[in-house]
């Protein structure tokens, strides 16, 4: 009716938005390119410059590349307006690495600003100049930092400290000592703010230079509470590491206690510990899970990866902590002062500081005082939702090792409906761990509430938690059972209504928990089994039914009631067999078989009838697993079944029958076997670390330093060799390996079989031949000795076993005696490597000119970054071809001076090749051409000129040749590999068929039959080496029970990326039968994840 009104309202609202946004930079963000930016940058007004810069920043924020304005922006760095400066700096830092040449233009201006009277200008200039990160100006920056480190302004000194890591990132060796010197100076600064920043610089520049800390240790401790919060976090870590490296662990601390428990029989000073324990009034066996806890402390020191891999050996090499590695908190001033100065930090507002301080106390504080960390940690739970999860992850570890710490605070872990699922799961786990006799009643009450939670996955977890609690506190078992039983009877599960999948999960979990509890003590829970069986009719979930039926078989002889009702139950399950799911059917079969084989006389006939009925049904089942098991049981139980018809079928000799009896006895009567406690393999990282949250060692994760690795004079160099010599931490001996590493890689040297059979050889575990290693770590069966014999004569084996590896003559001795068959030598392989040839120009298209190219493994003499390619020019025509040259496609327009390494062009470039003056018909010549690919994978467009004509061609890069061999031995390989876990590792698998032909060929001529493994190894190695420029580090041969099972065959290759010398490790593991196509898993460990991934794809490509 009133159109104007609507319009007005609309404009009004628009206007109000504009009013609201007026004076902000909204229009710049919304439409940064509505004016021409370039002229504004050259304007003489600061405000216009600002506007232009803001527009550029808006474009950066939106992800556009505006680096083309770089030269114009850099000019403005000399502006006097601080706002323009700030904006220019923001832009400059974003693009400096992309346009280093132009960035250099700004240096003079920075130099000038560094002498400005305004500290803010000085600080900003330093920050930006260091942030540009160019090798060329590094010495200048270093001088500037040195100057600023003595600046009167605290802020400038602080910025000098943060500039140091930027310089360090450039990895200029000649500067590093000066950088460390400046770090040292800044650490002694008077202002706590500077010390904090210096600590951060220390931890990234020279984290192991403990002498810098040693000099100032006391002062750093006392200044710690005044340092700004972010510096505190870093400084706490540094001080902790120093204290451990200097003084070792604290005798009264949790860590030591955990160790000493394990060695209590052997340690002499042990009585002392026990007396303290007695005083505190803690019964150690009750309060600590000793194995877990000792594992934790070792993980802190060794890193879980090392520790866990070592512990998988049959004998856990125990750490011999000598008394000297420990210190006492009472008389050690350094430890005392550290604990004293970190304790006020529990009151910090910053949760990261509190957690870091708690970590120090957890590791260093005497056990009696460790209680102090509990309240601050619990307070952290309330700080923010995001940190909540991280804190809980840490508390979980603390609680596992020392449940009593948190036992009285259980209500802090009660679950709120707003918690995330991960948080809920963590809280449940912690509640289970810390439950005690006094708290369990309340905790179980809580769990009952959780079971009604709308999140059914969580409800199922809660049910599982009830079971765990019952296991932990056997007193509560019956109460828990009652509750769980009541749950299974709940009408939501038993009613006819279809239950949702999640609902079924809760029920299955409940029955699993019941099963777990009953397992502890079956006779006393007989009635529970009876009740469950009674409910069988109403429980519809297949998995739940399967478990109950399993229990019937398992406990068929327990107590008095079950045997009586057994027959009825069996009849019932036999009757319902046809309608069950296959999972339940399988358990029914098991149960019937168990009962039958256990039965002694009474009701035998009925039982046999039931069994025959069920077995017959099973043999007609749709599911082949059920059919198979049916057949199997029929054969196995033929004597029990007692049917005549069957006996006709299976002619059972008495001997045979006896065997079957024994077999079935073994299969069905194993319940009494007590399982040995499973070794706990939690991964534990230092409290507060990222690795603890993601549960793998993040790059850069360092476990605590080895205790007492710095001498009392706190001089730096003294430690390393000494540490290795004592060998107390390395556990397994390394000394022997030295003599082998010296041996030439190409020679067929040392055949070392690590053999677990002989006790004496345990010491030799780490000695590995660089070429072939026959590993037996996991699957050495008695039968394997036969295979061993194949590989080397028995005499050799014996002489070798008797050999002491450290004997100086051993390697020579072996070289002469080494058997002939089971060795691959690199030379041998290298001769056979035939790099693939690709066609660049075929004679049909190229006027009779044929050009092929091969990637060469030689390192170019021009620049190490350049890939060399062998190109063969052949004249297939009948005329002479002259003036042949290979050029860039666009080289006509622009002179190619790509050899100049300063060229910032990152497009692939061809180093100009010499012209071939003429080529007679039929003549061929080979030229080496050099190409700098810059890691481009797209074909490089080139042009061949000859006889005045041009032919466009495409050169396809091969990523396999962007690397060069990096010789190393297995130890180094493993070490490097362990430093490149997680993100830096990628794996793919494929089918490898290359060896099948070779094997068939072998079959053809009988004169000389090679080992199948060798053929496979060679085949894989050849394929790899012919397609990529790699170094073959080692070949691990499997020693399996079977002759032709190649599973476990493992080849390791190493290489480094041409352009930046980043190592790239490749592991190829085969699986399958020798004579058939193998399943090959390829793993690439490389810091350059993208490169690694591309290389992996390429390898998989040519392997399959």
């Amino acid at each position, binding site marked *: 009716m009133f159109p104007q009104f609507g319009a007005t309202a609309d404009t009004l609202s628009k206007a109000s938005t504009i009013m609201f946004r*007026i004076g902000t930079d909204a229009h*710049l963000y919304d439409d940064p390119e509505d004016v021409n930016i370039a002229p504004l940058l050259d304007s003489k007004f600061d405000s216009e410059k600002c506007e232009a810069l*803001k527009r550029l920043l808006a474009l950066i*924020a939106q*992800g556009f590349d505006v680096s083309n304005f770089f030269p114009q922006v850099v000019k403005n760095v000399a502006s006097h307006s601080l706002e323009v400066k700030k904006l220019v700096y923001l832009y400059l830092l974003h693009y400096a690495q992309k346009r280093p040449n132009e960035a250099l233009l700004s240096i003079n201006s920075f130099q000038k600003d560094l002498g400005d009277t305004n500290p803010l200008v000085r600080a900003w200039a330093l920050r930006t100049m260091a942030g540009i990160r160019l090798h060329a100006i590094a010495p200048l920056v270093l001088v500037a930092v040195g100057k600023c480190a003595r600046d009167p302004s605290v802020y400038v000194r602080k910025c000098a400290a943060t500039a140091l890591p930027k310089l360090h990132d450039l990895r200029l060796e000649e500067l590093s000592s000066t950088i460390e010197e400046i770090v040292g100076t800044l650490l002694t600064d008077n202002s706590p703010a500077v010390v904090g920043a210096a600590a951060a610089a220390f931890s990234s520049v020279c984290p192991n230079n403990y002498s810098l800390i040693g000099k100032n240790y006391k002062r750093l401790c006392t200044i710690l509470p005044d340092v700004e919060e972010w510096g505190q976090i870093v400084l706490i870590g540094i001080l902790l590491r120093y204290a451990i490296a200097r003084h070792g662990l604290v005798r009264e601390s949790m860590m030591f206690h955990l160790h000493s428990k394990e060695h209590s029989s052997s340690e002499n000073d042990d009585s002392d510990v026990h007396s303290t324990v007695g005083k505190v009034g803690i019964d150690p066996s009750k309060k600590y899970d000793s194995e877990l806890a000792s594992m934790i402390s070792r993980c802190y020191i060794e890193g879980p990866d090392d520790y866990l891999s070592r512990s998988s050996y049959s004998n856990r090499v125990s750490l011999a902590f000598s008394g000297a590695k420990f210190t006492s908190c009472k008389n050690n001033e350094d430890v005392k002062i550290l604990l004293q100065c970190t304790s006020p930090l529990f009151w910090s507002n910053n949760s*990261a500081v509190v957690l870091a301080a708690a970590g120090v106390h957890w590791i260093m504080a005497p056990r009696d005082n460790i209680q102090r960390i509990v309240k601050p940690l619990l307070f952290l739970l309330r700080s923010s939702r995001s940190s909540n999860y991280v804190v809980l992850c840490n508390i979980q570890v603390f609680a596992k090792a020392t449940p009593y710490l948190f036992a009285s605070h259980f209500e802090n872990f009660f679950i709120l409906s707003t918690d995330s699922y991960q948080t809920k799961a963590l809280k449940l786990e912690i509640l289970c761990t810390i439950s005690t006799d006094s708290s369990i009643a309340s905790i179980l009450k809580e769990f009952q509430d959780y079971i009604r939670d709308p999140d059914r996955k969580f409800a199922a977890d809660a049910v599982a938690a009830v079971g765990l609690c019952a296991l932990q506190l056997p007193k509560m078992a019956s109460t828990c059972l009652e509750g769980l039983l009541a749950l299974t009877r709940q009408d939501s599960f038993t009613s006819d209504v279809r239950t949702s999948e999640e609902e079924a999960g809760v029920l299955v979990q409940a029955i699993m928990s019941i099963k777990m509890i009953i397992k502890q003590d079956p006779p006393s829970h007989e009635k529970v089994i009876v009740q469950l069986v009674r409910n069988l009719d109403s429980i519809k979930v297949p998995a739940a039914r399967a478990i109950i039926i399993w229990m019937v078989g398992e406990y068929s002889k327990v107590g008095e009631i079950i045997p009586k009702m057994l027959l009825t139950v069996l009849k019932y399950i036999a009757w319902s067999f046809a309608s069950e799911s296959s999972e339940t059917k399988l358990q029914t079969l098991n149960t019937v078989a168990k009962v039958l084989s256990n039965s002694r006389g009474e009701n035998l006939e009925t039982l046999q009838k039931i069994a025959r009925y069920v077995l017959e049904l099973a043999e007609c089942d749709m599911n082949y697993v059920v059919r198979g098991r049916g057949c199997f049981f029929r054969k196995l139980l033929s004597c029990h079944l007692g049917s005549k018809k069957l006996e006709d079928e299976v002619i059972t000799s008495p001997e045979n029958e006896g065997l079957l009896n024994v077999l079935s006895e073994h299969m069905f009567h194993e319940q009494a076997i007590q399982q040995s406690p499973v070794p706990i393999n939690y991964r534990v990282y230092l409290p507060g670390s990222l690795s603890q949250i993601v549960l793998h060692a993040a*790059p850069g994760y360092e476990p605590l330093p080895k205790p007492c690795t710095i001498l009392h004079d706190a001089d730096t160099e003294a430690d390393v060799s000494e540490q290795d010599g004592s060998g107390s931490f390395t556990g397994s001996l390394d000394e022997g390996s030295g003599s082998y590493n010296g041996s030439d890689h190409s020679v067929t040297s040392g055949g070392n079989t690590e053999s677990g059979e002989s006790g004496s050889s345990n010491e030799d575990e780490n000695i590995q031949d660089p070429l072939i290693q026959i590993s037996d770590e996991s699957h050495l069966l008695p039968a394997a000795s036969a295979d061993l014999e194949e590989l080397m004569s028995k005499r050799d084996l014996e002489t070798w076993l008797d050999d002491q590896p450290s004997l100086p003559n051993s390697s020579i001795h072996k070289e002469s005696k080494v058997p002939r068959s089971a060795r691959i030598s690199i030379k041998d392989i290298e001769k056979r490597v035939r790099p693939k040839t690709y066609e660049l120009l075929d004679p049909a298209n190229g006027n009779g000119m044929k050009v092929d190219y091969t990637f060469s493994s030689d390192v170019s003499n021009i620049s190490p970054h350049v890939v060399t390619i062998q190109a063969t020019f052949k004249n297939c025509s009948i005329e002479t071809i002259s003036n042949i040259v290979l050029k860039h496609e666009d080289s006509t327009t622009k002179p190619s001076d790509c050899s100049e390494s300063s060229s910032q062009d990152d497009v692939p470039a061809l180093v100009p090749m010499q012209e071939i003056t003429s080529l007679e018909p039929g003549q061929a010549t080979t030229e080496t051409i050099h190409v700098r690919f*810059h890691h481009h994978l797209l074909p490089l467009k080139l042009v061949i000129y000859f006889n005045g004509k041009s032919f466009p061609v495409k050169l396809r890069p091969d990523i396999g040749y962007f690397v060069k061999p990096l010789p190393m031995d297995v130890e180094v390989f493993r070490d490097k590999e362990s430093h490149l876990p*997680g993100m830096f590792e990628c794996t793919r698998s494929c089918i490898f068929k290359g060896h099948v032909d070779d094997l068939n060929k072998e079959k053809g001529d009988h004169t000389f039959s090679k080992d199948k493994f060798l053929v496979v190894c060679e085949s894989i190695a050849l394929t790899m080496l012919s397609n990529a420029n790699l170094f073959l580090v080692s070949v691990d041969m499997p020693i399996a029970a079977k002759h032709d099972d190649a599973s476990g065959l493992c080849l390791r290759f190493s290489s480094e990326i041409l352009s930046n010398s980043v190592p790239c490790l490749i592991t190829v593991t085969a699986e399958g039968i020798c004579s058939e196509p193998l399943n090959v898993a390829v793993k690439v460990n490389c810091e350059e994840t993208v490169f690694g991934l591309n290389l992996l794809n390429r390898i998989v490509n040519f392997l399959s």
Partner: protein
Amino acid sequence: QTKLLLFPLSSSCSASFHSSGQTQIVSEQAIQREETMLQCIFLLSDSGEVMLEKQLTGNRVDRSICVWFWDQLLSHGDSFKQQPVIASPTHYLFQVVREGITFLACTQVEMPPLMAIEFLCRVADVLSDYLEGLNEDVIKDNFIIVYELLDEMMDNGHPLTTEPNILREMIAPPNIVSKMLSVVTGNSSNVSETLPGATSSCVPWRTTDIKYANNEVYVDLVEEMDAIITRDGILVKCEVFGEVQVNSHITGVPDLALSFVNPSVLDDVRFHPCVRYRPWESYQILSFVPPDGQFKLMSYRVRKLKSIPLYVKPQITSDGGSSRISVMVGIRNDPGKAIDSISVQFQLPSCVSSTDLTANHGVVNVLSNKTCIWSIDRIPKDRAPLLSGTLLLENGLDRLHVFPTFQVGFRVQGVALSGLQIDKLELKVIPNRLYKGFRALTRGGQYEVRS
């Protein structure tokens, strides 16, 4: 140009950087292992748009990580959203979500995760303080300020200046005056020309030369009460998390001392950096030089409280495909002051298909995600508020067997329910006159009643 020759280019400095692209995979300088902590911060809007990226080190992080992140978020839903630390294929990510804005930080190396999270929270706090709230629009409108703040707060992946008072002096927050000024004069510099004095003093949170005509200081006790009441109506946990918030406008460098009547009720405390530890350790006295303006002096926790101000009695009965629900709310222990802003919120179980809820007092809203909010405000004198109605269950369901948890919100002005009382506030260096004001407030925190 000639001066350039002073810095000859070595071959190693030939840096080549690629913004993105499939074919260009490795650049020369990017390989260098960065040992700094955070590499990049992204600000994402609630629709997954990258509003802003701030690269912190030379090793640039490509935006594609945000695409990966958002894809994961869409496919995994809420559980992913609440995961603060994520290991992506190339980076470790830390996320903090505030008011729909996702703050995403990337790193490739080991660092304390809480440090990253705490820092992101600090960034969020500072931004919402500067921009008076957080949403997509204000961030885009003030992106320059956001850039400048981020640059000042973090250098090379390590936090540099995070103290809000110093930041405010370095980078002026946008306010009406400056906005208008910029419109009029066309000049809108918000970057301070001088270094704030506080950066060099021994009390880095306070500028030295402040002058006020009236000296005043206000101390607020703001408490949040957490409680869990089980479905049997038993109070299993009741505690208070409180903050002492101070707003001070005092000339010069004052030295204040705050003491409590009953410090023994405090279970645990955390302090602003300005609080001296020693006096607290010996006498439980808060001795401090306050920052200028509003700040959080201390947070504390009081455990094992016995009385709750409100009762909420839910009752759910069900049969034959529908359930009857009734929720009664009333005052359990009168705190002596009026309780207002009372609200009860609960999530309807997923098996409920439709509802018919009415209340004899207040407003009932059922949101599309099945969240039901009942706003009561004050309890009337004459009758107890009652919410009642029926829940219709999905087909095939006979009875309700999962039960919602009720979250209760309320506010009591003038009372600190923990019982903590301020004794006195003393000023050591006495200016002419000092006006002191004290207030208290209690809110419902994680106050849950199960049914």
